[in-house]
């Protein structure tokens, strides 16, 4: 029996005319995790969220949210989900408090509970005491209100589409801390192209490119897997000549000179590289100061996975 999943998509495909916005996406988001959905602009992240929220229908494949098919479940699923779209649209004539009360009421909140929830979320959004209408809000204020309304029902699953894109550094920091504080209580699935945000708070990540999931794993596992494909060599002298020799080897995908005598080699066969490199260094008659598997950050993994095929 498979582990409980907050989101599970199977061969999820969405086609607009001649464009395959999503192409057979299989994705599993474990319940309770903070899951980053990474991808360059136009990769299909927003399309994915529109399918998960039922705002659009898949061309083929299925999407299950909290164990229910989103195309069938309707209000049952929506009652347990909070959603922030990339550009949230509000009724301009309402105040922030009006909107939060309206949103809470749609979830059936009433009386003291609604009052407390609204007050807490206004505080969270930094909008306590702001009585002007939403129509006059800055983009950052709207984004913060958007996050607050997504939390009004204390959701089991929080879906955020580019939540930090309109926030200033302090707002971004606060939001990421808030997301981190939900760990274990609420599943958070957020799309972004800001790698730092994902590295900071996410347990796991999926990388989307051209409508396909090109990697999906816990962040540590992902960076370790790609780190194994990188070897760092440091020699006492003759680093340039050694770099040229390494670049000629069949297992060397790329060779980059680092500071001092270091060389970073991206390899296609780590075992062969680790056997060959000491022999090459010895053959050159130079001293080997360091030979180790390199560590790749998420950014390097991301660039490695999607950068080479950017249109």
């Amino acid at each position, binding site marked *: 029996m498979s582990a409980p999943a907050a989101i599970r998509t199977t061969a999820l495909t969405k086609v607009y005319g001649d464009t395959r916005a999503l192409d057979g996406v299989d994705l599993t988001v474990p319940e309770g995790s903070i899951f980053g959905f990474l991808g360059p602009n136009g990769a299909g992240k927003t399309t994915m969220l529109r399918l998960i929220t039922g705002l*659009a229908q898949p061309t083929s494949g299925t999407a299950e949210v909290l164990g229910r098919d989103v195309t069938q479940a*309707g*209000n049952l699923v*929506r*009652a347990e989900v909070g959603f922030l779209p990339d550009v*949230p649209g509000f*009724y301009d004539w309402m105040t922030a408090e009006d909107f939060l009360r309206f949103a809470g009421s*749609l*979830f059936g909140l009433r009386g003291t509970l609604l009052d407390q929830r609204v007050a807490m979320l206004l505080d969270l959004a930094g909008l306590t005491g702001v009585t002007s209408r939403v129509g006059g809000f800055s983009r950052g204020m709207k984004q913060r209100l958007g996050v607050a309304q997504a939390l009004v*029902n204390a959701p089991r699953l929080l879906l955020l589409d580019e939540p930090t894109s309109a926030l200033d550094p302090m707002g971004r920091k606060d939001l990421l801390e808030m997301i981190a504080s939900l760990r274990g209580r609420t599943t958070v699935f957020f799309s972004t192209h800001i790698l730092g945000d994902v590295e900071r708070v996410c347990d796991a990540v999926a990388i989307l490119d051209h409508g396909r999931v090109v990697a999906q794993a816990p962040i540590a596992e992902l960076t370790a897997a790609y780190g194994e494909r990188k070897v760092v060599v440091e020699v006492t002298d003759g680093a340039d000549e050694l770099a040229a020799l390494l670049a000629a080897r069949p297992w060397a995908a790329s060779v980059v000179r680092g500071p001092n005598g270091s060389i970073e080699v991206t390899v296609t066969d780590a075992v062969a590289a680790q056997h060959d490199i000491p022999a090459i260094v010895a053959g050159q008659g130079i001293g080997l100061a360091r030979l180790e598997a390199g560590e790749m950050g998420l950014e390097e993994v991301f660039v490695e996975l999607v950068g080479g095929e950017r249109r």
Partner: protein
Amino acid sequence: MSRSSGFTVFARKEAQEIWRTWRRWVLPGILVFFAVTGPPLARYTPQIVQAVAGDQLSGLEIPTPTYLDAYGQWAQNLTQIALFALIIIYGGLVSAERRSGTAVLVLTKPVSRSAFVVVKAVVNAAFVATLLLVGTLLTWGLTAAMFDTAPGAALWSAALVWLVLAIQFVAVMTLLSVLISSAAGAAGAGLGVYVLASIAAIWQPLADYTPAGLASKAVAAAAGQDPAVAWPVVTSLALSVGLVALAATAFRRREL
């Protein structure tokens, strides 16, 4: 979260939106204007014509106006200008929420798409009915003041027939604003429906048995005649329900 609860909360939002935005002023302003100016204009038409035309119309005898002229003016204004305004105002009834993104925030909460569409049609039909009630009361009172007599039967039967027509056009605009993303485009299509209905009403069987005859029958009722309205009213109400149901079905299939 019950289905009726989401319906009620969204209906309250829709009513507040009418009260707190331009919607509070435009259609009410138009109807109140005609309600207030109609009876005095009807009462003093001979004097106005005399003042404007002078001796040029000395041979023409203008009949003494009666309360039926005030009623007729109210009915004419309702079936033409007020209906045009309604069509234009409701061109973006649903599409405006899609364009602004508010529909996305609402419809990812426990509100069904059908409820979203039906609430809009019902609340705005109720709004139009309220305006009609206020406008007709004003017309009735001012007519009584201007003509000393104002039997209500002709006025209220005309108003009720127009209400059925107005509800039908709220339903038409609900559907068009689901199907057509542009508010101006939907309003244009709505005016096209109005023109087609007016042309269709020239053929007597259509005027007698279908919604196409409602406008002329409202005017006839205001003139003190007793037009047969049962068939047009029943078919119009059935059509209105069908149009809103169709709008809800179409909206459920739309991508947001």
